[in-house]
């Protein structure tokens, strides 16, 4: 079973995304901010990260940068989820090594399609 780390501080989004992923046979762990995400990357060893950009403590782009700078975590694919669907953010996240980008709001099946594609590409 593939493990997904969801990094998101909005509780209701965590609820929806978790149910969506579990119903598709994926295992989910949750981090509430960027700093928590970096810790859980080490302990949970996920196959893929869903990363929100606007978060307390360490924000999404900073967490992504730190993750890509670490040899142990740099190959884990990251899909950025963000309300800030601006072109500069997409560009910045891509430059930092994000595999894909989802603008909020998204439907469950859209999220699953992107996750499946990214997981397939990363094998």
């Amino acid at each position, binding site marked *: 079973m593939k493990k997904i780390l969801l990094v998101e501080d909005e509780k*209701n*989004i965590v*609820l*929806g995304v978790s149910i969506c992923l579990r119903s598709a046979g994926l295992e989910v762990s949750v981090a509430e901010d960027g700093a928590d995400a970096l810790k859980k990357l080490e302990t949970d060893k996920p196959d893929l990260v869903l990363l929100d950009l606007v978060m307390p403590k360490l924000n999404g782009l900073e967490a992504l940068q730190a993750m890509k700078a670490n040899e142990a975590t740099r190959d884990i694919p990251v899909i950025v989820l963000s*309300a*800030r669907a*601006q*072109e500069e953010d997409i560009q910045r996240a891509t430059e930092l090594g994000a595999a894909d980008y989802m603008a909020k*709001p998204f439907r*469950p099946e859209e999220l699953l399609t992107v996750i499946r594609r990214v997981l397939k590409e990363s094998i």
Partner: protein
Amino acid sequence: MAQHKRRLPVVSAETVLQSLPEGTIVTDATAAIRFINKRAAEIFDLNPVESIGQLFAAAVGNYSLNKAIHKIIAAGGKCLPEAETKTLNITVGGNERYFKAVVSPLIEEETLVGTVLLFTDVTHYERADRIKNQFVATVSHEFRNPLTSIVLAIELLLAGRQPDLCGENLALAQAISDDAERLTRLVSNLLNFSRMEAGEIKMELERVMVAEMVETAMIPLALQLKAKNIKLRILIPDDLPAVYVDATKATWILTNLVGNAIRYTPEDGEITISACLKEKKIFVSVCDSGPGIHPRYHEKIFEKYTQVKGNGSSGGAGLGLAIAKEIVEAHGGKIWVKSDLGKGACFRFTLPIKEKEELLLEEDSVS
């Protein structure tokens, strides 16, 4: 008691012009400055005496104003539907200010003798507009998180086909889903428009095939097409040249036009997307079999915040077509609609192609 009218002292026109709070410049028919009032001299940081006799382009150096002056002169002051209006951003005395500039023909005995330029300070309007745009952008950002959990929750409930979700409960759940989608569309359009108004959207031009754009544009609409069982016909010739556009934005126009077409087309209806090459441009059409649009609204629907009432509209902000128009015009193209009530609507727009000469030059520089 009889009132005696106070007689005004005789004042010269020049005194009046010098006292105006608006900047005024008069040129002759060779575009040389003949008069400049105090305010205009202050705006452009000019010496009012020295600038007399200088060409406008040399003294002021503003390209678009100079172009407007020459356009009026070339037309002999005739066949101009309206005076040329521009908005200028100028730093006056260290402060950034905005001016509305109107260039009009100066006519004497039915002959064009020059042009008159009038500069009105509109900084306070510009500032208010900028604050409004920022506010709209912030609000639409903030709406996205709650919208995400609503969309996820309701779609999961509907997809799970909960056993107790039937009859009226199912209808209620469907209502939440439909309106969450509508809110999503509203929020995206508001954000796009506020950014476009603020001039934040950059154009990144590339060569792209119309067929590819259509394919990408249809991805987010596949579910809606299926739900209404609408037949989609795509008529694009294989040998159609590539367009030279900002692919993301041009694709957005297609998604928006087809999205509208789906909303207004009845179940089992038909939508046709076609493209052809004409006059060195690509013409793209999106035609539907919906209720059509009364000719009186054909121009108005492209204005922002416009809604045509009583045509089964699904209640948007009236921004989709205004954004489409901005994007098309940013590419130097045109967008319009052909429609009669009861006969469906055909939206058409033009996109540029790269001239052969430009392509050859590019290849040369590569080799």
